[in-house]
């Protein structure tokens, strides 16, 4: 390894950083423009062509703002939280291949900062560190609403991290490797006819699971409960201002880009696409494909925000725990099953097995009542703690302090104390 190698590494890293910083600025602008269009407004249009400079102006404004910290904030943690958020959001990008491989002289340069053996586990690891940014921001502000928002959002994030981890596992199983480069390589070529062998087709359920989790992880609408203005003011970042707020804001949008990039890598073939033309074009095309694919996802993220109303908190948790988790678990095993089946069995046998599988599924369907919401002995239930009727008037999800008196009075035969 000589200095040229080191320089290449630095260059690739700087490239990723630049791509992603420019992308964030564009995303913020794009979000405002697109949402405005969808709501029949104009959106920012003063600064630069089509208001393109608006983000820069906002950023500059935040930098010159006074940095206010609440009196009973925890100084160091208050400072560290936005830093953790922003750094983690950037470093996650390391394992994403954002372009193809090309040769300059005798050196192969691959536009991917880092391709470790643990591959996309890096994304999950950084995702779990990212929780700290939010929960610490909430706690260190020394104020009620941020604390509530922080805890809420971290509970939301860990809930959806499960489904996300399992969806990722399904792709790993399908690929047989954790490396981002292997996953991309596995999506080269075509499935049948002109249809590319992108994972989004065979792994469609995993794609859906991952996409929903990604929206929830980035706390975008309709899962933006941590910032539910009506309930929690501004969520965990209520007390932040100035550059610290800018960092949190940046990290949120960075995460959107990173998640889109992960989605593209795992399900849409990453920088894969038809290559043609002279060498220089061939070197640039993958990056263009990558950027375009990410752009499509960014648009979908924005579209969701303009279209969907916010979920209630209990519905949100229900979706994560009661729908996505079991479904993801089943899908992981189904993927494993199909992979092994393809490796070992001939087609005719597979069809026969599928028939048996269908029969089993039918049996399971009839046993579906087993999975009704909560166990209740005949005649005994119906009282406290049972499934809530759908028209229950109580507001959902607000984390009110639980008092002793909240317990249902029907709780008669309790444990005997003091034997």
């Amino acid at each position, binding site marked *: 390894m000589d200095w040229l190698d080191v320089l290449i590494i630095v260059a690739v890293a700087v490239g990723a950083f630049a791509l992603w910083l420019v992308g964030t600025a564009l995303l913020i602008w794009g979000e405002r423009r697109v949402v405005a269009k969808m709501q029949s407004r104009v959106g920012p249009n003063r600064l630069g062509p089509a208001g393109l400079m608006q983000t820069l102006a906002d950023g500059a404004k935040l930098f010159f703002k006074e940095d206010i910290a609440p009196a009973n904030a925890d100084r160091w943690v208050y400072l560290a939280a936005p830093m953790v958020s922003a750094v983690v959001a950037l470093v996650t990008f390391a394992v994403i291949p954002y372009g193809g491989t090309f040769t300059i002289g005798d050196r192969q340069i691959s536009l991917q900062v880092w391709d470790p053996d643990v591959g996309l586990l890096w994304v999950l690891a950084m995702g779990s560190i990212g929780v700290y940014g939010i929960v610490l921001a909430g706690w260190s502000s020394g104020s009620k609403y941020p604390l509530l928002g922080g805890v809420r959002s971290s509970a939301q994030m860990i809930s959806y991290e499960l489904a996300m981890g399992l969806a990722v596992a399904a792709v790993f199983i399908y690929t047989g490797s954790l490396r981002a480069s292997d996953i991309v390589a596995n999506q080269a070529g075509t499935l049948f006819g002109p249809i590319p062998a992108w994972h989004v087709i065979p792994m469609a359920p995993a794609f859906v699971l991952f996409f929903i989790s990604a929206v929830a992880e980035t706390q975008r609408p309709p899962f933006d409960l941590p910032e539910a203005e009506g309930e929690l003011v501004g969520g965990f970042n209520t007390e932040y201002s100035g550059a610290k707020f800018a960092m949190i804001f940046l990290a949120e949008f960075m995460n959107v880009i990173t998640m889109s990039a992960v989605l593209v890598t795992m399900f849409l073939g990453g920088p894969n696409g038809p290559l043609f033309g002279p060498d220089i074009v061939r070197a640039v095309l993958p990056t263009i494909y990558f950027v375009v694919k990410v752009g499509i996802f960014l648009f979908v993220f924005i579209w969701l925000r303009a279209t969907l109303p916010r979920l209630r908190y209990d519905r949100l948790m229900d979706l994560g725990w009661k729908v996505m988790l079991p479904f993801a678990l089943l899908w992981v095993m189904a993927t494993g099953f199909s992979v092994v089946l393809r490796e070992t069995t001939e087609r005719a046998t597979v069809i026969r097995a599928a028939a048996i599988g269908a029969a089993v599924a039918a049996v399971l369907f009839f046993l579906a009542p087993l999975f009704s919401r909560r166990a209740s002995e005949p005649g005994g*239930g119906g009282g406290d703690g049972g499934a809530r009727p759908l028209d229950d008037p109580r507001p959902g999800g607000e984390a009110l302090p639980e008092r002793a008196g909240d317990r249902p009075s029907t709780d008669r035969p309790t444990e005997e104390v003091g034997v």
Partner: protein
Amino acid sequence: MVALATAVGAVLAQTPVADPAGAAASTGAAEFWVFWILAPLSLAAAVSMVVLRNPVHAALMLVVNFFTIAMFYAVLEAQFLAAVQIIVYAGAIMVLFLFVLMLLGVDRELPTRVAQIRGQQPAALLLGALLFAALAVGVAGPFLGADSACNAPPDAVAAAGADAQPCVGLAAANEEGNVRGVARLLFTDYVWPFEVTSVLLVIAAIGAMVLGRRTERPEDLVDGRGVRKEPLRARAARPTGSTALDREAAE
């Protein structure tokens, strides 16, 4: 810039890229420096976790400590373990810790409690020192003498004959990638412990539910008999002491 890059390249160049014999790789300069940066950091985090008064700060120090440990794993080429360390310890377990600390409201500084048993502190210090000594002996052992039965170089294994304890070595263990190396062991030799781990997880879930659940329905606490006789709502409406269960207990 170029000078810096050259320096970095020079340091890294001392690291042997791959040992053709497949034996244990010698440590390079980079490892040396990384260790001497990480180790004090790790220790400092551990010590401040004990010393800091604010429980949340202490917990954060523990997170830092976990992170440095993950980096140690990474330096030791155990990438999967490093990722798991971050995902499970830093990402899951410490979040639970923080929830409990923040939400129970124990995050204010507490006055130091005076030890209730006389001589407890000196005794604790003494025993702690003893434990430290035992562990230090354990850690220092390989540097003090022939304290490992692991005959790493192939010729040593051959010399030891029947008593040989061949150790695989890092290069061979990570031959086909770290994750696959872990998987190979986990699902062949260690498949039974792996399955038993699922038992552990089932029990953990039960524990979380049994001990963590606040409200319980009456019929959860006794056998079905006696509770089924009349609906709960009706019984609750009556004055206490007239439920079927109470009658039964009185008999």
